[in-house]
């Protein structure tokens, strides 16, 4: 069967189908796994938008995710601000922090940006550890954070809607002149510079938008888990989004949608059945998958039946 569908519509259909699937199966574990998958989906799309399109590899995903989680924790726990508003505040914090970090680092070429971005989560987690130690508080982080919605399924609906907005926005930018410039930067930044493109502005804007999405996803995560702890700055929130983007097909944005469900739900169930060995098994599977099928795996596979536009 050959079906011609717009890639964006196709991705939206997958998200809605997963909502329906969760409703029909009605398994709390599956619903929670899908919530996590939708949170990672946002992170992966944001990472692919800034790093996949420009070629500037950003290892600071968990920094922006962590500051979003902590800001939501602070605003919700201390000031009892509704979660919807705290996520908007996370978005603003992520964008402004991303812009602040871009100014000195994105002027650097080569691996320097990547190395500096790698330091960010370590600096932030060290700062938070010191801060809590000075205050002498027993638990590092915020707990009893307000929930996004009364039930896990409602949370899945809300995060899925948020993902749809992110997906439509990032995909529109990807298809616009802005996206063309980002792709030209990845191909040959010097050639673009010499023909008049002010590449720094484009890179900084892409990076800041991505940082905003990452922080908002951090806020959503802390609300779903009702806790914002130091683990929000952990490697998990860097490695999984990158893996999802690679499995889905780097530079495509849309590939992150099916890939996030596949990777996260699979890792959640592996964790359920084989416990701490999950990471080893999952990492081996992921490496094998990428090595054997190449980074275009999922999209290439799906193209056999469905034509993307």
């Amino acid at each position: 069967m050959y079906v011609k569908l717009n890639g964006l519509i196709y991705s939206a259909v997958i998200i809605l189908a997963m909502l329906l699937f969760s409703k029909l199966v009605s398994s709390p574990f599956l619903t929670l796994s899908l919530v996590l998958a939708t949170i990672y989906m946002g992170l992966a799309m944001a990472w692919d938008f800034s790093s996949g399109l420009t070629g500037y590899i950003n290892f600071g995903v968990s920094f922006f995710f962590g500051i979003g989680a902590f800001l939501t924790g602070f605003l919700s726990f201390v000031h009892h601000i509704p979660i919807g508003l705290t996520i908007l505040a996370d978005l603003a914090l992520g964008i402004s922090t991303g812009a602040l970090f871009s100014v000195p680092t994105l002027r650097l070429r080569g691996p320097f940006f990547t190395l500096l971005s790698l330091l960010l989560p370590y600096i932030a987690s060290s700062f938070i550890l010191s801060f809590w130690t000075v205050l002498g508080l027993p638990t590092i982080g915020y707990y009893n954070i307000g929930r996004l919605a009364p039930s896990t399924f409602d949370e899945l609906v809300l995060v899925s809607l948020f993902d749809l907005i992110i997906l439509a926005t990032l995909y529109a930018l990807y298809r616009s002149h802005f996206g063309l410039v980002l792709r030209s930067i990845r191909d040959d930044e010097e050639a673009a510079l010499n023909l008049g493109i002010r590449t720094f502005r484009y890179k900084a804007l892409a990076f800041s938008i991505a940082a905003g999405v990452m922080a908002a996803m951090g806020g959503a995560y802390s609300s779903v888990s009702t806790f914002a702890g130091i683990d929000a700055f952990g490697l998990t929130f860097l490695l999984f989004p990158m893996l999802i983007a690679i499995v889905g097909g780097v530079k495509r944005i849309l590939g992150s949608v099916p890939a996030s469900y596949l990777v996260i739900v699979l890792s959640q169930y592996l964790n359920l059945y084989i416990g701490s060995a999950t990471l080893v098994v999952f990492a081996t599977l992921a490496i094998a998958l990428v090595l054997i099928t190449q980074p275009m795996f999922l999209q290439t596979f799906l193209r056999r039946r469905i034509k993307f536009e």
Partner: protein
Amino acid sequence: MTMLLSVKDITKSWGGNRVLDRISFEMKADTIGLVGPNGAGKSTLLNIIAGIIRADRGEVYISGRNVTALSAQQLVRIGLTKTNQIPRPFRTLTVRENLEVFSGLRGRADVESILHMTGLYEYRDIYPQALPFGHLKRLELAKALACNPGIVLLDEPLGGLSSNEAKTLIKTLKDIRKSGVSMIVVEHRLWELFSLVDEVVALDRGKKIFQGTPEQFQADRAVAEAYIGGTEG
């Protein structure tokens, strides 16, 4: 109005080696050839004019305005672009997208017309890796035209082309000249170049040794000695 360019006392050294020594010239025609043996400093001069590298001393003027301190990005916005000797297409963008990237930098470029003019229209939706070398050279030119330039600096546009391809490209360059775009062309293939340009500037080991018409160039003894290693009789 045709944009004209002049350079005054351009000097540049690399690691103590003077590669350009007080080069001055003024474009009197809208298309000039910049020639000289290998190592004469032609490409370095072109890169200095384009704002890609800085001269140690000297000034560059476009239509009387001193543009020495401007960056490549600023120069593109006032109408000066440069093509690369070896084509550098954006490989993940189609031919059309390669042009659209630059559209809007200096007014909206007519991408369709540029594709037609450079003979790339039928290849507009394919990726550059599928293009033969001659078409990549054309794409390099088309990218420069997409910036809506007043002056284009062409670094060896005929390099690596067959004589038929070169002839077609010369015809395209003549059409571009007719549309009001000035050109400075660095080229080793003199006979083809002379059919395009009205004026020639010759460099040898960083010094200007000649400026005049192609006919005067062919009759100049000093040029012949420096450029092709002496003349008979």
